[in-house]
């Protein structure tokens, strides 16, 4: 698959590494200056798009229309939500995931037809599980 990944974090760096092992073609939209750099993980062979303009322009620049999947994983919930909705509603990308930190907001975007991933809820669940043991 051609997968477009937006964000610069340790999550993004490790995810790209794993997805490449599975043979996917990756376009990395690194829109946050000063984000996590990935020493040792290697980005050779990954197409990289760097931009700080309007999200819509950056996604066009990354040729999002030809992507099979779009992953909005930046550290900004609002940016992820908007980018994911652009990908889904304007470009009809078949698989769209967005990272939303705030649990209640993640639910809202789920109702709006997006596939949100909420690291907060996931971490809380793990921690509660440990404490209940």
């Amino acid at each position, binding site marked *: 698959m051609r997968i477009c990944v937006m964000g610069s974090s340790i999550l993004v760096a490790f995810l790209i590494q794993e997805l490449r092992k599975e043979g996917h073609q990756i376009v990395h939209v690194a829109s946050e200056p000063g984000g996590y750099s990935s020493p040792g993980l290697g980005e050779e062979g990954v197409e990289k798009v760097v931009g700080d303009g309007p999200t819509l322009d950056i996604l066009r620049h990354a040729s999002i229309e030809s992507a099979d999947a779009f992953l909005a994983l930046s550290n900004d919930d*609002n940016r992820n939500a908007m980018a994911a909705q652009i990908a889904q509603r*304007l470009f009809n990308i078949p698989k769209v995931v967005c990272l939303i930190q705030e649990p209640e907001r993640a639910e809202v975007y789920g109702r709006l037809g997006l596939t949100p991933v909420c690291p907060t809820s996931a971490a809380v669940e793990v921690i509660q599980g440990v404490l209940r043991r």
Partner: protein
Amino acid sequence: MYIIIVGCGRVGRGLAQTLLSVGHEVLVIDRNSARCDLAREGMGSVALEGDGCQVGVLREAGISRADILVATTGSDEDNLAACQLAKELFNVPTTMAIVNYSQNEALYELLGVDMAVNATQLILSTLENEIVGRPLMHLINLRGTDRRVVSLHIPADAAVVGKPLSEVVLPPNSFITLVVREGEPLLPDEETRLGSDDEVLAVTTPAEEDMLWETLTEVAP
């Protein structure tokens, strides 16, 4: 009405002032404490410091009883998020937002913002109108259609001057809605004759705009 304004920059503060002066209940939300202080100085306790895109902050603002939410931040991502949360989570009847980048206007409408105000477009229109030789000004895009309202100046030597509107053949999806003559608005009918230096407000489509302009400004042979 109870109106929540997210973003307390010049637009947000100005809007709050106007709404308060006509008797509405207003709360502005901004992350920046200096901006909140500035609002409080002039208007009393109308500011809440916080992120207007966070559920908890919106709840603290009493959003479930708000009639309108207006998002005026400089970020389209933030404006869109505030409006979508207001609508989906708290059933706010009306959401409005400033569009900072023109290309996001269609997205706002697609995603359910009730009124998208394209600030850049409004400024451009105003400037456009002041530039000699460009007598067609975009006033507003009609929501949910591809129609727009434009304003045109009828030159003194135009072929249409003196003709009744029934004899002026406009493009099929365009029509004249108002004629402003010497500062007085007139509701036009079939018999209205266009005069030199009239201002005309017309509804048209992007495809017909040039044709409309030619029809109304073409010089008499």
